[in-house]
């Protein structure tokens, strides 16, 4: 494999990771506000199917992508209503919706199986796309991939550098304090859950109208992506930049699985396709193990010099969720 093939491949990784990235950033917004939307796996499938169906019937990519957004926002709204207004377990509502939306997408998508639909074409940026290496990597993508690049920076800026972002973090960490300072906690949670859901919904058409164009029912290969998104958000410590890194890492692993397939004849392709998942557990283990009690005890028994070093490594890896994630807010 020569250098140019690798560069084209890496450019492909950037665009193939874009849907996962956008969905992960969307979920980051919701979880930063304290709502975990567990329905993502079903949402992505349903929005992929729905937007494909709309795009096929109307021949409009724009309407297709809008449909995806609307579906994602609508499902997130149910999660918000169930968990904020009715104060049911977010996990319960989300899990049911994950299965419900998945089966709904297979049921309603049946007539559209294997149809030919419109597909997003790439949009090289004049001038910039001719830069060697960088041009192929970053400037010969489709519009949604550019959007994903902008989203990383935009989301990071919004969450960590604006006043609204400060309020968002406060709502997820210390809702009572935020409320005392005048934030409308539950209203904001509704807003960010729905906004996050719209971004998650965008991931659907990014698959069905671009990367994995078409709708193939149960063999669309989209079942499971949503669960990965949830893991990536944890891996990314609820920080859009680190989340993006996680999404790219996942994309890279999947690409490597395809590339390395010929040199590993003993391993069936189905196994390589799911290889990123155990690696995901390992990384979750790495970023979480610092929170476990026994680690402190082991650390205390280590000699002084190595203790400092190990503690520093663990602390740099370790992530803590928003303090009020999954906890309903009630004003008394």
């Amino acid at each position, binding site marked *: 494999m020569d250098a140019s093939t690798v560069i084209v491949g890496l450019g492909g990784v950037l665009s193939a990771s874009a849907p996962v990235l956008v969905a992960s950033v969307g979920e980051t917004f919701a979880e930063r506000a304290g709502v*975990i939307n567990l329905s993502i796996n079903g949402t992505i499938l349903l929005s992929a199917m729905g937007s494909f169906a709309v795009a096929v019937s109307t021949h409009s990519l724009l309407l297709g992508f809008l449909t995806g957004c609307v579906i994602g926002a609508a499902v997130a709204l*149910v999660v918000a209503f*169930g968990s904020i*207004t*009715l*104060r*049911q*377990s*977010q*996990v*319960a*509502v989300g*899990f*049911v*919706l994950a*299965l*419900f*939306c*998945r*089966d*709904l997408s*297979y*049921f*309603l*998508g*049946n007539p559209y199986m294997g149809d030919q639909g419109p597909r997003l074409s790439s949009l090289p940026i004049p001038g910039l796309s001719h830069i060697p290496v960088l041009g192929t990597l970053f400037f010969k993508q489709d519009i949604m991939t550019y959007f994903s690049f902008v989203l990383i920076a935009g989301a990071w800026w919004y969450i960590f550098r604006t006043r609204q972002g400060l309020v968002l973090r406060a709502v997820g960490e210390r*809702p*009572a304090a935020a409320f005392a300072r005048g934030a409308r906690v539950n209203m904001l949670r509704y807003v960010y859950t729905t906004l996050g859901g719209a971004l998650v919904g965008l991931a659907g058409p990014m698959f069905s109208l671009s990367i994995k164009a078409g709708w193939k*029912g149960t063999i669309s290969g989209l079942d*499971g992506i949503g*669960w990965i998104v*949830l*893991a990536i958000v*944890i891996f990314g410590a609820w920080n859009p930049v680190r989340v993006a890194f996680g999404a790219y890492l996942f994309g890279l692993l999947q690409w490597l699985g395809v590339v390395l397939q010929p040199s590993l004849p*003993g*391993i*069936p392709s*189905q*196994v390589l396709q*799911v*290889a990123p*998942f*155990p690696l*995901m*557990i390992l990384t*979750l*283990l790495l970023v*979480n*193990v*610092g*929170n*476990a009690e*026994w680690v402190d005890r082991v650390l205390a028994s280590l000699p002084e010099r190595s203790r400092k070093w190990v503690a520093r490594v663990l602390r740099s890896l370790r992530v803590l969720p928003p303090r009020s*994630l*999954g*906890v*309903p*807010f009630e*004003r*008394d």
Partner: protein
Amino acid sequence: MSLLAPGLGETSGKAPKPRSSNRQRWINLGLQIGALFGAFLLTSIILLIAGAPPFEAYKEIFLGAVGSTRSFSNVLVAWVPLLLAAAGVLVTFAAGLWNIGVEGQIVLGAILTTWALRLLQATSLPPALIIIVAMVAGICGGALWAALAGALKTFGGVNEIFGGLGLNFVATALTLWLIFGPWKRPGIGSMSGTEPFPDRLALPTIAGLRLSAWSLGLGLLAVLVVYILLDRTYFGLRLKAVGLNSRASFLLGVPTWQYGMLAFLWCGGLAGLAGAVQVTSVYHRLIPSISSGYGFLGLMIGMLIRYRATWVAPVALFFAALNIGSIQLPIVLKLDSSLSGVLQGALVLFVVLMEGARQRYLRRVRAAVLPPAPSTPAALPSPPGPDALKEA
């Protein structure tokens, strides 16, 4: 974090109410019927969107499930793994754990059962003994996979939802690797699974049907055992205490993480048995989709019955009937058989939302009747407890 607890119940600041409150009971019954009605209404609308006649579809599902002895026996075949999975997740729910990994635990049960059968099929041991050993191996496989999720949670700080999901994928990968690799059929491996075992290594079935009285008995026995475990033993009481308030239980001397692990082992063992049943009495081999989503359905059943073991059997039977009844939808009405999943999901969704509406109504009534209570910390998780269960 209530993220870690099923948390369907609302226990804080409950007003005392007479136990024989007839009005309450009627309201609850009304809400349950309302949830059923809502689920069917939503599904009917979805059917109309798909351009299908709703009543025709329901009739086909009904006939597909109970139309003949054969079809009803198939419902019972699907009932068994659902009973086992649902009974298993009740134990983890009681401990406040979301064992989403139950799906992979079924798969591991099936894998270890197949492994034991492969090892022993050439020996001269009596078939009955081989089957028993294989099923015990299956139980161990499920328990092992559950213990892994439990260890990840206890010692690695990985939330059981994510650990379990990851392990589900690993289990699937393992199955595919075995089917296409070391255990592939003579010639070429295929999605149809491993080489079928001889008939003598299958659980005996009722003449002419796929149903085995043995597996049916095992499923029902599992539900009974879990009912006794949770409602009639000291262990069950302490387990529920851990699920309700793990910190308080720990301070009162309950070894909390050990109890969590035991709950995982119970659930994994039952799920593994479900996998063993699928291999020894349904498929007679290992197939790629051996768990058939029964683990996730078991979780749905657990949520639907609000964690009461007495309701496992009828609700699981209903779910099994939907699954089997919808199989012929593609042939008769050109509809996808995932309609059963849509209906099941809608049902659980409406039950959860209706319960929320009921609690909200009760809070309103209480707020109107009682003087304002002393404020409780706002960020208090609300896991389900014995009280919440009784109230529901």
